[in-house]
C-alpha cells in the first residue's frame, strides 16, 4: 500500500507538471483527491492493513495528499500568473492616443475682468452695488453736477428714450442712488453696461463696461484716494506697478485727477502698447464734488469722499492684448474659447 501511495504521488506530480490550464488542473485535483478519486480508492484498502500499521500508513497517505495539494497550488499559481500575463498583453492599448474631450465653457473675458475687479475691491471692504441701465437725465447728469449745456448731454453723445430718460452713459449714477439711500460710511463699487452714441470701430463701441468706485465718510482725504488706487493698481496690474495722478476736470469731482499706470507690458520703459511713454491712462478720479454730496442729502461740511471710474473693456483689452473692441461683442466661440 505504501508503494501504491508513493506511485500515486509520482504519477500525480508528473501529470500536474504537464498541465497547461486551470481546467486540466481542476480535473487532476478531482481525479486524484476527489471523493471518488485515486487516493480515496487506495485508502479504501486500509481495512485490510494491520491495525498497528494503520497510523503510519495513514500519516504517509496524508503526506501524499499534502504533497499533491501543494503541487496543485503551485501549478495553479503559475498558470494564473501566466494567464494574467497573457491577458494584460492582449489588453495593451496605445496610451498615446488622445483622451476623451471634456469641453469646459469659458466666461466672457469682460466677465473675467469684472470678477477680478470685484475680488480686489471686495477684499478692500467695498460692497458691489447695482443700478439700472436705463436711467433718468437727473441721475446721469443733473445730480452729478454736469452743466446744463454740457456736450455729453447732446444727442450726438447720449442715447435718448425721451427727454428725461436715457441709456446711462456712465456707472456714476449708481453713486447718487447709493448715497440717497445709504448713510456714510459708504464704500461701494458698481460695474456694468454703459452706452454712448459712438459708431463701432476698433476702439469705440456704442455699448461698453465701466466700474465706478465711491467712498464717503468723515475725514476722507485725497491722500486716501491715492492710497486706495495704488493698492488696487498693484493688485490688478502687478506688484511693481507705479501710478501717477494728473490734474483733470470732471463735473462730479473737485479736485479731479486722471491716473496713469506704468505700462503693464514694458513696465515703464516705453513700448508700442504705451506709444513709447511708459505710461497708460487707466482711470479718472477725484474728490466727490460738494454739490453732488448735497444733491444726495449728505452734508459736505461733515463728510467727504472720493470716486473713481474705469473702462473695463479697455482694461480687458490691455490685459489680454485684444486690439479691437468689436471682438468683445462678436462672441466668436474661437475667441471666447481662448480665455
Amino acid at each position, binding site marked *: 500500500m505504501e508503494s501504491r501511495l508513493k506511485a500515486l504521488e509520482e504519477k500525480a506530480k508528473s501529470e500536474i507538471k504537464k498541465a497547461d490550464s486551470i481546467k486540466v488542473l481542476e480535473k487532476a485535483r478531482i481525479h486524484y483527491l476527489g471523493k471518488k478519486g485515486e487516493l480515496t480508492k487506495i485508502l479504501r484498502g486500509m481495512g485490510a492493513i494491520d491495525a498497528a500499521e494503520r497510523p503510519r500508513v495513514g500519516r504517509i497517505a496524508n503526506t501524499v495528499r499534502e504533497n499533491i495539494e501543494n503541487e496543485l497550488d503551485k501549478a495553479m499559481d503559475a498558470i494564473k500568473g501566466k494567464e494574467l500575463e497573457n491577458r494584460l498583453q492582449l489588453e495593451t492599448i496605445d496610451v498615446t492616443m488622445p483622451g476623451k474631450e471634456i469641453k469646459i465653457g469659458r*466666461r466672457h473675458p469682460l466677465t473675467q475682468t469684472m470678477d477680478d475687479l470685484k475680488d480686489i475691491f471686495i477684499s478692500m471692504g467695498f460692497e458691489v452695488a447695482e443700478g439700472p441701465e436705463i436711467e433718468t437725465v437727473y441721475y446721469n447728469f443733473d445730480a452729478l453736477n454736469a452743466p446744463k449745456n454740457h456736450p455729453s448731454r447732446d444727442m450726438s453723445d447720449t442715447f435718448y428714450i425721451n427727454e428725461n430718460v436715457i441709456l446711462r452713459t456712465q456707472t456714476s449714477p449708481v453713486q447718487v442712488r447709493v448715497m440717497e439711500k445709504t448713510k456714510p460710511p459708504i464704500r461701494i463699487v458698481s460695474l456694468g453696461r454703459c452706452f454712448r452714441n459712438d459708431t463701432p470701430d476698433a476702439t469705440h463701441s456704442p455699448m461698453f463696461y465701466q466700474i465706478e468706485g465711491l467712498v464717503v465718510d468723515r475725514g476722507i482725504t485725497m491722500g486716501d484716494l491715492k492710497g486706495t488706487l495704488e493698492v488696487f493698481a498693484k493688485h490688478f496690474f502687478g506688484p511693481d506697478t507705479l501710478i501717477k*495722478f*494728473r490734474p483733470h476736470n470732471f463735473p462730479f469731482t473737485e479736485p479731479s485727477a486722471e491716473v496713469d499706470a506704468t505700462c503693464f507690458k514694458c513696465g515703464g520703459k516705453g513700448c508700442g502698447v504705451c506709444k513709447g511713454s511708459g505710461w497708460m491712462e487707466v482711470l479718472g478720479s477725484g474728490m466727490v464734488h460738494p454739490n453732488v454730496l448735497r444733491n444726495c442729502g449728505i452734508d459736505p461740511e461733515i463728510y467727504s469722499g472720493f470716486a473713481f471710474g474705469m473702462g473695463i473693456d479697455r482694461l480687458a483689452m490691455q490685459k489680454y492684448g485684444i486690439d479691437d473692441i468689436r471682438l468683445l461683442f462678436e462672441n466668436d466661440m474661437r475667441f471666447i474659447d481662448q480665455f
Partner: protein
Amino acid sequence: MYVSMNWLKDYIDIGMDIDEFAEKMTMSGTMVEDINISGENIKDVIVGKIETVIRHPNADKLLICQVDIGKEKLQVVTGADNIAEGDYVPVAVHGAVLPGGLEIKKGEIRGEISEGMLCSAVELGIPKAVIPEKIKDGIWILDKTYPLGENIVKALDLSDEIIEFEITSNRPDCLSVIGIAREAGATLNKKVNYPKIEVRETEEKADDYISVEIEDTEGCNRYVARVIKNVKIDSSPRWMQQRLMRTGVRPINNIVDITNYVMLEYGQPLHAFDLSFIEGNKIIVRKAEDGESITTLDGIKRKPDVSMTVIADTKKSLAIAGVMGGGQSEVTENSDTILLESANFDANTTRLTSKKLSLRTEASSRFEKGVDPNIARLAADRACQLIVQLGAGEVLKGAVDVYPEEIKPHEVIVRPERINNFLGISLNNEEMVDIFKKLELGTENSGDTIKITVPTYRMDLLMEADFAEEVARIFGYDKIPPTMAKGNITVGGKPDGQIIEDIAKDLLNGMGFNEILTYSFVSPKTADMVNLDKNDTKRNMIKLINPLGDETSVMRTGLLPNMLEVAARNVNHKVENFKAFEIGQIFVPRNNPDNELPHEIPNLVIAMYGKEDFFALKGVIETLLDNLGIDEYEFVVERNNPTYHPGRCANIVVKDKTLGTIGELNPIVIENYDLNQRCYCAELDFSIMLELTRIEKSYEPLAKYPSITMDFAVVVDKAVLAKQIEDIIRTEGGNILESFKLFDVYEGDQIGKGLKNIAYTITYRDKERTLTDEEAKAVHNSILSEISEKLGGRLRQ
C-alpha cells in the same frame, strides 16, 4: 490748443527744455498731448536767386533755371511755372533732406543736368491748410531779398516748437497764448510779461461814426466797437503769418490776420466789418427776425431763427453773432474804413446757434465755452495797436463800448485747515497764500481764513473745493502722501443676485457652455425673426430717439435674437459644436414711460447646436435647477409657441410660476437665421430663478436600511407622456418611493403600431426600518395596476 513756443516766450522766460516744460505743465493740469518741432528734418536747403529761366529743350512742361546760391551757381530743372528771373526761392542742393525724408541728388532730367530742387511751402513741411493763398501753388517765392546761400530754416525762422495742449472745459481762459503763459507762470513760479497796450489814435472820434445798441441783452453781454480809417489791405508780416500758421490758422491779409492773432493771443474773437456797408451808422445787436436770411463769409445763405442773435444795422443783418460774419460787409482790398468788433456773446445762445446751423468756427467754439467780458476792450485795443504798428490803418479816438451789466471779480473765503484736511497735506497759511498769488488771485490772509478775490476770467473758481484743487495742483498731486482711509471698517461683498449668477455661470461653464455678451439694443425686426406671435407682449419694445441705426434702435425684450445672431455667426465661421449662454437684462416698458423707468429683468438664454438633441439641453436645465436648489419644476408640453417646434417645446414651470421655455427652434426661425441645422434653446426668467434659488445646504443622514429595486416595462399608446406614468409612480409610490428612472423606450413592429414600450426601474426604501419584499411588491403592483387602468398600459413580462 496749439501754442508756438517762440510766441509764448514773448511773455515768459521758460528757462528749460521743452520736454521738462511739457511734463511740468501736464502735472499742474494743462496736459500736453503732443509736441511738434517745426523746421526739423530740413537739411541743406538754402536761399537762392533765379538768374535766368529757359524752356527745357526736350520737355514742354519743364524749365531750366540758373540759380545763384552765393558762392556758386547751379542749374536746376523744375516743373513749376510760377517762377521768374530775380525771384528769391528755397533751393535744396545736392545732399539736401526734406521733412518727409526725401533726399535730393544731382541728376539728369531729360538730358539736362539738375543740381538741386526748388521747393514749395508744402515740401518744407508747412501744412497745406494754413499756407497763404500767395504761396499755396508752385515754388515758394520769398517775400523779399535774403542773403544768398543762407540756410532757409534760419532765413525764414522755420524753427519752432509747437505744443498741443488739452484744455479742459472748466478752463476756457487757457484757450489763448496769454492764458497758457499765466498757467506756465504759476507752474514755474515765474513772472508773466503781459503786452503793453498803447494805441496811437487820430483826432477823429469813433462815436462820430457809429453808435451801438444791444437789444438782445441775453445774447450779448458787451459790445466794443472801434473804427479804423484809411485802411491799407496788404499781407501781414512774416512773423505774424508764421505764428498764425503754427497755431493752425491760414493768413489772409493784415486786418483779418490781426483779428485772428489777437483772438489766439487773448482768447477774444474779433470781427472786422467794412463800415461802408453799415447803414444808418448804427450797430444793433438783436434777435433774428422771422424770415430773415444772411449769406455768411463761406458763401452759404443761412436762415437764422428767432432764437439766434444777429449783428444788424438799421436795415439788415450783417453777421450771425459770435459765429460768422456776412459776406457783404466783409473787409476787402477796397475797404477804406472798418469797424472792429470785440463783443461778448452768451455761451449757450452761441452753442445752440452753432449747432442748429451746423456751423462751428474758432469764434463760436470760444464763445460757447465762455469768454471773459472784461477782456473785450483790451483785445480791441491790442488789435488797434497792431494795426497802427503794421501800418494797416489809422485808429479813431476812443471806442463805443456798451456793457450793460459789468461783471466784477468775486470773493470767496476759504479755510486753509479744511483744505489741508481735505487733501491730506499740511501747508501753513503763508504757503497757501503763496500758491494763490502765483495764480494771480487776490488774497487777504486773516488767520483762520483767506479771503480770495477771483479775476473774472477764472469762471471755474466758485467754492472752497475749487481752491483745494488749485492748491493741490500747484503744490503737486505727486507730493500728496498716499494713505488708506481711516475710521470705519466695512465688510465687502456682493448682492445675492450676483452670487447666484456666479453659481449659475460656474454650472453652465462646467457643462461646456461659453458665456457671451451682446448689445442691449436690437433691431425691431428681431420680433419677426424669432417668429413672435402677433400679440406677443415682447413686440412692445422701448425705442431710442437717436439710435445709431435701425439695427440697434430698440431695447431688447428677450435675449434669444442676439443669441441666434451669434449662433449664425459661428455657423458661418464653421464652428461645429456650439454651446453658449448669456445672462443679461431685458427691458419691459411701463404704462407711464415719462415718469417711470422701465422694468429691467435679468434673463438667461442657453443655446446649442451640433451633436445635440432636446434631451441634452433638458438635462442641462435640470442640472442647473437641481444645483440651484430649485425643485418641483415640471416640463409642461407647449404646442403654441411659434418660436419653437410645436412638437418639441415645453414650458418650465415651478408651482404657479413659469420659469421659461425650452425647445427645438421652429424650422422657420432656423431659416430666418440661416442656421442650417437643428438648434436647441432655452429662455429663462432669471429674476424668478433668483427668487426660487436655495443655496443653503443641510445634511441628511445616510440611509441605514437596505433598498429594494424593481423594474417594469409597459406597452402604452404613443401619445401617453412619460410625465403621466411618472405622476402615477409618485402618487402610488408614497413614502417608500426613493427614486425612479426611465431606462428604455422602444417602438417597433413587435410592439404594434401606435404603441411604445416604456421601461422604468424603481428604488423603494423605508427610512425607519428594513423594507420587506411583500411591502415593496404591494406598492409596485399598485403602480402597475394604476398605469394599466388609467393609461391603458399592458404590462410586459
